[in-house]
């Protein structure tokens, strides 16, 4: 093991060099301030040590000008850093159009990955070089955190909600994936690898690992097997909302409020149906808490999304970012 090999972390995503620029700028500024203050302290300590013959007349004990200077100058510098950082932070939360979505379910102590084509993997994530990838993540138990140091990204993964993170990989290779939020006994073992491949290799990898069904097709199966279609299907006798094309639409609720049918709305309507009853319907739907796994939930969402895509003719992924929380 050589120190040189680990000396600097690779910059393997499109955001990494920009974040590092701010990092080195702040290291430089803070280093300058530290060295300056240490130097002044040292000089004063030597020059004004007891017994030295330095001039001690006209000693000041206060000066409004000096105080205001070292109040306002640092403040102005801080505002500069703040603005710079915000610009980058906003971009970290704005995936480029056309990002491909991959789904992540975290649980003690593993990462389960599902690709839209139905490919599934555990603790390894294959992604194409140079193409924006967006992860929609949730947890089946406690809070975890998806952290890839080489990409300079980190996002907590919470039970009961979807969080998102995006990156564009810019270097081929294998990079560490860590869980960064303490999650119990084997927290330090909850790691994995992100494998960045050339787009052609990635396409071949997808082909080789394609499951029998795409994620949306699997969702359609879940929709039937769990009996969702019995009430929400086209020919159902029960008075329940028709879910064809529901994704991304505006829904009026019984309490008079309006919500957008996004991932979280669909998740909560299945797990906690009493909290969001659609206007004009009775609260008769049972909760599926503990019966549907988070992976199946993601498949269901992918299925509902695909019915919306057919209805509106837009691609099934991307474009829904405006009303989701990150």
């Amino acid at each position, binding site marked *: 093991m050589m120190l040189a090999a680990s000396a600097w972390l690779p910059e393997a995503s499109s955001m990494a060099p920009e974040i590092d620029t701010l990092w080195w700028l702040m290291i430089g500024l803070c280093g300058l301030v530290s060295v300056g203050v240490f130097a002044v302290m040292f000089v*004063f300590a030597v020059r004004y040590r*007891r017994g030295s013959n330095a001039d001690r007349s006209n000693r000041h004990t206060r000066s409004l000008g000096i105080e205001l200077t070292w109040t306002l100058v640092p*403040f102005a510098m801080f505002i500069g850093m703040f603005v710079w950082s915000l610009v980058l932070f906003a971009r970290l939360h704005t995936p480029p159009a056309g990002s491909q979505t991959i789904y992540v379910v975290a649980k003690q102590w593993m990462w389960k990955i599902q690709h839209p084509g139905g490919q599934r993997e555990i603790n390894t994530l294959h992604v194409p070089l140079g193409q924006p990838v967006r992860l929609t993540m949730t947890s089946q138990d406690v809070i975890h955190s998806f952290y890839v140091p080489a990409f300079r990204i980190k996002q907590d993964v919470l039970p009961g909600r979807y969080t998102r993170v995006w990156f564009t990989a810019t270097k081929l290779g294998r990079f560490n994936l860590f869980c960064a939020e303490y999650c119990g006994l084997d927290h330090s073992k909850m790691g994995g690898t992100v494998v960045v491949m050339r787009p052609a290799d990635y396409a071949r990898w997808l082909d080789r690992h394609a499951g029998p069904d795409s994620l949306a097709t699997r969702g359609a199966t879940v929709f039937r097997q769990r009996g969702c279609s019995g009430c929400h299907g086209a020919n159902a006798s029960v008075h329940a909302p028709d879910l064809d094309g529901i994704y991304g639409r505006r829904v009026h609720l019984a309490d008079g409020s309006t919500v957008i049918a996004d991932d979280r709305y669909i998740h909560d309507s299945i797990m906690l149906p009493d909290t969001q009853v659609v206007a004009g319907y009775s609260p008769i739907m049972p909760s599926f808490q503990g019966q549907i796994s988070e992976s199946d939930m993601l498949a269901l969402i992918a299925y509902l999304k695909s019915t919306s895509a057919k209805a509106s003719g837009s691609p099934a992924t991307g474009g829904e970012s405006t009303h989701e929380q990150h």
Partner: protein
Amino acid sequence: MSSIDAGESMAPSTPSFYAGGEGLMAWLTTRDHKRIGILYALTITVFFAMGGIAAAMIRLNLVEPAGLLDAETYNKAFTFHGVIMVWFFLIPSIPATLGNFLLPLMIGARDMAFPRLNLASWYLFVIGGLFTVSALLLGGVDTGWTFYTPFSTMFSNTHVILVVVGVFITGFATIFTGINFIVTTHTLRMPGMHWFRLPLFVWAMYTVSLVMVLATPVLAMTLSLIGLERIFGVGVFDPALGGDPLLFQHLFWFYSHPAVYIMILPAMGLVSEVIACFVRRRIFGYKFMTYSMVANAVIGFMVWGHHMFVSGMSVYASMVFSLLSFTVAVPSAIKVFNWTATLHKGDITFEAPMLYALGFVGLFMLGGLTGLMLAAPALDVPLTDTYFVIAHFHYVMVGGTVMAYLAGIHFWWPKITGRMYSEPLAKFSAILMFVGFNLTFFPQYILGYEGMPRRYHSYPPQFQVLNIFSSAGASILAVSYMLPVLYLLWSLRHGAAAGNNPWGARGLEWQTSSPPPEENFLHVPIVREAYAYDEPAP
């Protein structure tokens, strides 16, 4: 020790506060603020040793990438280390010991406003400590000191409730101390001791008390909610029960960020006393120092969200919290500049308390500056929950608060005990501590940037070299903490008599005998501006 010659004539005839009632019961039923301060000091020393042993286990484990302990033991060790060091050492450290001892002396009072409440505070502290330590003896806790939900409420199979009850009870000890300090400062200042004559240490005690009284109840509520969910299954934080895990983080950090100021404000005040004394001049920008302490206390309440930039909190909330976090760094910067400017045209000597104080300024500055990077959301994204954060808050709390605490213990030791310790040994351990501290924690900044997450029992081998540096530093640090215990105890029997004012300091506490009599002052002390070093000592 030339400074002793300058001391006033000894006053051996004055009976000190140690004289009245020497049995154990006399100490356990005392209402004398000085004795309560000493009770607290002894208790937190025991807790510091316990937390230190846990730290030693952590550093030992991390010598090997695979970990020398098993994961369960390691997780319990860092949880115990955090809980004990935060609530049973750092929070009471300066206020409950030196603050208790000195606040009435510094304002010319005979005791606290509520002496019985003061003693009750110590008892609650001990009872809370017993609950927490009993959890360790019964098998430990593995949640981390932050008790994040739903792990702490629904998933951990350890003694979470015992620890939560212990911390809950201890919180009331903090609140009692805060109430006592506020009322004492308002009502018991002697004639002539108006607000802008108060030593900065008193200002620090006053502002920290405000934070204690306003923030700690929120901790009590949050811990109660943990109990409610864990014992009765009331859905507050666990989404499976309809709760929200981020609610916990908001509540927890609403207390725990101001708690950082509970730990650092007293250190800032304390170091100002020490620096003024050994530079022998008025602290530069006294009024700005007081304003900046108040600013730290107030703005410190509005920055908790910077612990949550990657938690899933709204982007807009992150922006506001980031701006406020940069803002709260300004008053801290003002203090560093003022301490530095105080050295200008001084008459400086470098006794042990001064070395500790200068060490504090340097380490606090490095801790504070790295805090700026964590306040910038785009940098916080890669850095949070890594060793960078560990290094940052150890620079502030260990490099800052613990260094300042030891500066204070050395500075007021002659006043508290009437004895001088071995100055060369004290200087040696101050320097050793500075070196050991940097060797322990500076590598952790680099580890964090390199991507090593915190709370990892095992780690990829490329992080080993820096971890070995850190563990080596920790063993030096351990020696530098044990040395003062030895030579300070030695001084109790063999140290030279200190005299009333061995340092030639100007605070009121130096105008009475060492150790002071039970009623603090036999003669009415002369009140002047704090830090009247330009005038001869009274």
